[in-house]
């Protein structure tokens, strides 16, 4: 599966580490777009060109959770770009805020290992692959369009 991923973090080093770890999982062939904060991410995000988003929480200009809420508020009906939060915010309150109210699909606490990322992402990517097969699903329609 090929995945066009948007990686959002104010640390260039952390963006490199996220991308390297994702490649090492071998879960998909990733094509990356980078953004340095939530505002940069909103400017670079194109629902037609991005399949998956990885975002930090604490960033200048626009934090991750507010970026996620902005994306969700403008999504067309039936569309849902999966968003994974990768952050140092590890308290239960923050995790619940992101997953229950924030529109985040998956949560990874820094620091992470390849095994942790694999464990967290495998179910999400499996769902994406299934969705891609459905002609009526978002990814199915996208695949049909590309073919």
């Amino acid at each position: 599966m090929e995945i066009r991923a948007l990686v959002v973090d104010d640390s260039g080093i952390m963006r490199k580490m996220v991308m390297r770890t994702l490649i090492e999982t071998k879960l998909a062939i990733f094509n990356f777009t980078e953004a340095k904060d939530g505002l940069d991410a909103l400017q670079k995000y194109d629902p037609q060109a991005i399949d998956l988003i990885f975002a930090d929480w604490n960033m200048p200009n626009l934090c991750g959770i507010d970026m996620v809420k902005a994306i969700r508020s403008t999504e067309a009906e039936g569309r849902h770009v999966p968003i994974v939060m990768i952050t140092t915010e590890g308290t239960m309150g923050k995790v619940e805020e992101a997953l229950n109210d924030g529109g985040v699909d998956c949560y990874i606490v820094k620091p992470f290992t390849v095994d942790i990322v694999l464990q967290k992402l495998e179910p999400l990517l499996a769902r994406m692959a299934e969705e891609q097969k459905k002609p009526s699903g978002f990814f199915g329609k996208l695949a049909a369009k590309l073919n």
Partner: protein
Amino acid sequence: MSIEAPTALVNSDCVAEAFESISSSACSMEVKNLGQQEGDIVSNEAILAVISLMGQVDWSVFMGLSQDVAPKMAAKFAGFEIPFDSPDLADAVGELANILGGEVKARLDGRGVKADISLPSVLRGDNLKLMIPRDTPLIRYHFETPVGEVIVGVVAGRKSTLAAG
């Protein structure tokens, strides 16, 4: 040497515990806490990262690395070499401070103390000296690590004194 923590720095042992934890998880390093130290913190060419915790505590948590130690620790964290003069070094050290802050926050949360973390600040220079107002509560730990000595500490703001009193 054990020094009794001022009231504003109750729970500051979280900071030492957090550093031990992230050294292992983020840098694959086992470290040894040499205990609390007093006196001025002065270092030749060095990097100092600071991150704040605000809420039921008003803390500035800092991590000091010498010119020799900083690139080695950054390489352990990032998985690739980062020269001392590279802007990426401040980025890597800042991210380590971010992870340290998150770990301190989580440990405080486990003790029922709520706080939010700031974005980290990183300073680099010659003859860095940590100067704080007189009578400001401060605890400083020295750690022995496989890459050299690291200083980790916490300074408490006035709000912490009020909150603890």
